C-alpha cells in the first residue's frame, strides 16, 4: 500500500515537473532574448552569442518616440483606477444577484447574459464617437480618463464568477448576522467580504490585467498621441517595420519589465488562494 502510494506520488510530481517545464519554456525564451547582445530580429540559432544589459539601459533612457518609462506610468495609473472602479462594480452586482431578491432580478440576469453575447468591439466605433461627442478626446489626459471609463464602464456585466462564489457561502451565516441586528449593508461589509478574499483577489487581478493587455481600444482612443500610450500599444509600436530591426531585443526587455510587477502581485495574492475560504465558513 505504502509503495503504491509512493509510486503514484512520484508519478504525479514527474508529470507536474514536465508540464511546468513546458509552461515556463516560452517565458525563459523571452528572458533570454531580452539579454541578447546581437540586435536584429530572427536568428538561425537559439542560444544568443553574447549577453548584455544594454537593452534594459536603453529602454529606460527613453526618447521622444519610444518613451518606455512614461508608457509604464500611464498604464499603471489607468490600471489602478479602472481596477478600483470595476472591482467595485463587479462585487456590488454579484452580491446583489446572489443574495438580494427584488423584482427585476431575473430580467437583469437575462439581459446581462444577452449583452455578453455581442462581440465586444462591435460597439467600439460607437463608443469612440460617444466619447468624442462628450469632448473626452480633446486632450491626452482626458483620453486617459476616457480609457479608464471604457475599461471599467461595462464591468458590472462580468459578475458570473463572483456570483457563483457568493452562492457557495451558506445563507445561514447571513441570517445569523440579521438576527444580531445587522443591516444588509453591514452584513455585506463585515461578514461576506472578509470571507471572500479568493474571489476579491480574482476580481482585482482580472481587471488589473485588462489595461496591460488591451491593444485595440487603447489604439483607437489614443490615435497618434505617443506620449499617452499604454504599454501594450507602445510595445506594439516597437515591432512596427520602421522600428523592429533596432528595437526587437528592447521589446523583449520591455516585456520582462512589465511582467515583473505583475508577477510580484501574483506572489502576494497567492496566499489568498491557498488560505481559501473553507476554514472561515466552517465555524
Amino acid at each position, binding site marked *: 500500500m505504502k509503495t503504491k502510494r509512493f509510486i503514484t506520488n512520484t508519478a504525479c510530481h514527474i508529470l507536474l515537473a514536465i508540464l511546468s517545464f513546458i509552461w515556463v519554456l516560452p517565458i525563459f525564451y523571452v528572458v533570454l532574448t531580452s539579454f541578447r547582445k546581437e540586435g536584429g530580429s530572427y536568428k538561425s540559432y537559439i542560444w544568443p552569442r553574447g549577453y548584455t544589459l544594454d537593452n534594459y539601459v536603453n529602454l529606460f533612457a527613453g526618447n521622444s518616440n519610444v518613451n518606455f518609462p512614461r508608457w509604464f506610468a500611464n498604464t499603471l495609473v489607468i490600471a489602478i483606477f479602472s481596477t478600483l472602479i470595476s472591482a467595485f462594480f463587479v462585487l456590488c452586482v454579484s452580491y446583489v444577484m446572489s443574495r438580494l431578491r427584488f423584482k427585476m432580478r431575473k430580467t437583469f440576469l437575462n439581459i446581462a447574459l444577452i*449583452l455578453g453575447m455581442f462581440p465586444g468591439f462591435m460597439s467600439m466605433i460607437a463608443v469612440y464617437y460617444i466619447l468624442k461627442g462628450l469632448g473626452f478626446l480633446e486632450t491626452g489626459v482626458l483620453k486617459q480618463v476616457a480609457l479608464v*471609463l471604457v475599461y471599467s464602464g461595462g464591468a458590472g456585466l462580468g459578475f458570473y464568477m463572483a456570483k457563483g462564489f457568493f452562492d457557495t457561502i451558506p445563507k445561514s451565516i447571513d441570517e445569523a448576522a440579521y438576527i444580531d441586528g445587522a443591516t444588509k449593508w453591514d452584513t455585506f461589509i463585515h461578514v461576506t467580504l472578509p470571507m471572500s478574499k479568493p474571489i476579491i483577489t*480574482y476580481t482585482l487581478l482580472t481587471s488589473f*490585467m485588462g489595461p496591460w493587455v488591451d491593444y485595440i481600444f487603447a489604439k483607437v482612443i489614443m490615435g497618434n498621441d505617443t506620449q499617452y500610450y499604454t504599454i501594450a500599444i507602445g510595445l506594439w509600436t516597437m515591432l512596427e517595420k520602421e522600428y523592429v530591426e533596432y528595437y526587437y531585443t528592447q521589446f523583449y526587455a520591455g516585456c520582462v519589465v512589465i511582467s515583473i510587477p505583475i*508577477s510580484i502581485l501574483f506572489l502576494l495574492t497567492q496566499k489568498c488562494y*491557498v488560505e481559501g475560504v473553507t476554514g472561515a465558513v466552517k465555524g
Partner: protein
Amino acid sequence: MGIFKKKEEPVYYKGSDASVRQAFKNGDAVTKLSFVIFGLGNILNKQIVRGLIFLAMEIGYLAYLFGFGIGAIGDFITLGTLEQGQVYNEALGIYEYSTGDNSMLCLLYGVITLFLTAAIIFIGCMSGKSAYATQFRKEHKQHIPTFRDDLRSLKEENLHAFFLTLPIIGIVVFTIVPLVFMILIAFTSYDHEHQPPGNLFDWVGLQNFSSMFSQGSKLAATFWPVLSWTLIWAVLATSTCYILGLLLALLINRKGTRCKGFWRFMFVLSVAVPQFVTLLSMRTIFNANGPVNVMLRELGIIGATSSIPFFTDPLYAKITIICINIWIGVPFTMLSTTGILQNIPAELYEAAKIDGASAPTIFRKITLPYMVFIMTPNLITSFTGNINNFNVIFLLSGGGPDSLDYYYAGKTDLLVTWLYRLTITQKDYNLGAVIGILVFIILATVSLLTYRHTGSYKDEGAFQ
C-alpha cells in the same frame, strides 16, 4: 362597533409595491398629476428633497428636448439631407467645402435622444409611484419617510438599488447605447463608398442581410466557412482548457502533492506575463525561422532549409492556435477552479470517507457535481468568450493564411476578426454590424437554451 370591532389589520402592503397602473388608477388628482409634473406629490407632502430631485430631472430633460432633441429626432429619421458640396469662392479663387449633414452623428444623436426619453419616462413612472406610496401612507396614517429615512433604506431594503445604480449607468452608456447604435448601422448603407462627412448614407432595410446570404456571392462563400471554423474553435478551445485546467488543479490540490504553492506559481507565471507578450513571442517562436523550426532542423527531423508551416498552412495554423490557446487558458482555469475546489464543504468529504467511498467515487459524486454546478455559467461565458476571442487569433495568425476565395478574410479568421477587418481595414461598417448581429443570434440560441437548463439557474440555493 361592539366587542367584535374589527381589528385594524397590520399593513404589510406598503403602497410602494403597487404597479404603475395601480398607482395611476387608485391615485388621487395630485398623484395623477405627479406623472406629468414630477415630484409634485412628494413636495406637497413634505418630502421636499425627493420631490425636487424628480422635478430637476424633468426640467433638465425638457431643456434638452427643446434645445436640441426635437431636431435630433428629425435628423434620425432622414439621416441627413444636405450633402457636403463644393462652393466656388470668387474672392479667393478656390473651391471651399460647404458643411453638409453628417449621417453618422445624426444617427448617434438620435439614439442618445431616444435613450434619454426612455429614461425620463421611467423616472416619470417612479415619480407617480412615489407620489402614490406617499398618498397611501397618508391615508393609512403611516409615517411618511423623510429624506433621511430614504437614505437609510438604501442600506436595508433598497440596498440593491444603491448597489446597482452606478454599474447599470456604466452598462447603459458603454455597452447598451453603442450596441443599439451598431445594430441600427446594419440597416444602413454605411460602407466604404458612403463615408461621412463627405457622403451621406441612408436606411436600406434588410439589403445587407440578403447580400450576406445570397447564393453564389463572395460574401456568402466567406461567411459559411468562417462560421464553421468559429464554432469548431470555440468548442475545442473551451473544452480543452476546462478539462485540462480542472485536472491540473486536482493534481496540484491532491493530498500527496508537495510544494503546492511552488507548482501553482510555475503555472501562474504564464498568466502573470501579459497575454499579448506571450502571444507575440509564441508567434516568433513558431515562425518559419523561429526557434522551434531551428531546433527541429538541428535535430535532423526536418531538412536543413525546410520548415514546418505553423502559421502558413491552414490546417497547421488551426492546430497550432488551439495548442497555444491551451497553454494560455489552462493556468486561468487552474486558478479559478482552485478557489472553488477549496470552497467545497469539508463535511461532504468527511461524510463520504466515513461511508467508505473510494477516491474516484468521491470525485464523481461530490467534486464533479459541485464544480459543474458552480462553473456552468462560467463555462458558458468562456464559450461565448472564445467565439469572440479576438486577441488570440489576431495576435497569433492575424487571421491568415489569407485566401483569395474569401471577401477580405483568412483561413483562421473568426467571425469577430473578420468583423474587425471589415470595419477597421475595409470600412464596411454595415457588413461588420451584420456579422455582429449574426454572432449574437448564434450565441443567443446556443447559450440561452443551455443556461436555462443548468442547475445553477433553476435552483440557485442547491448547495447553500
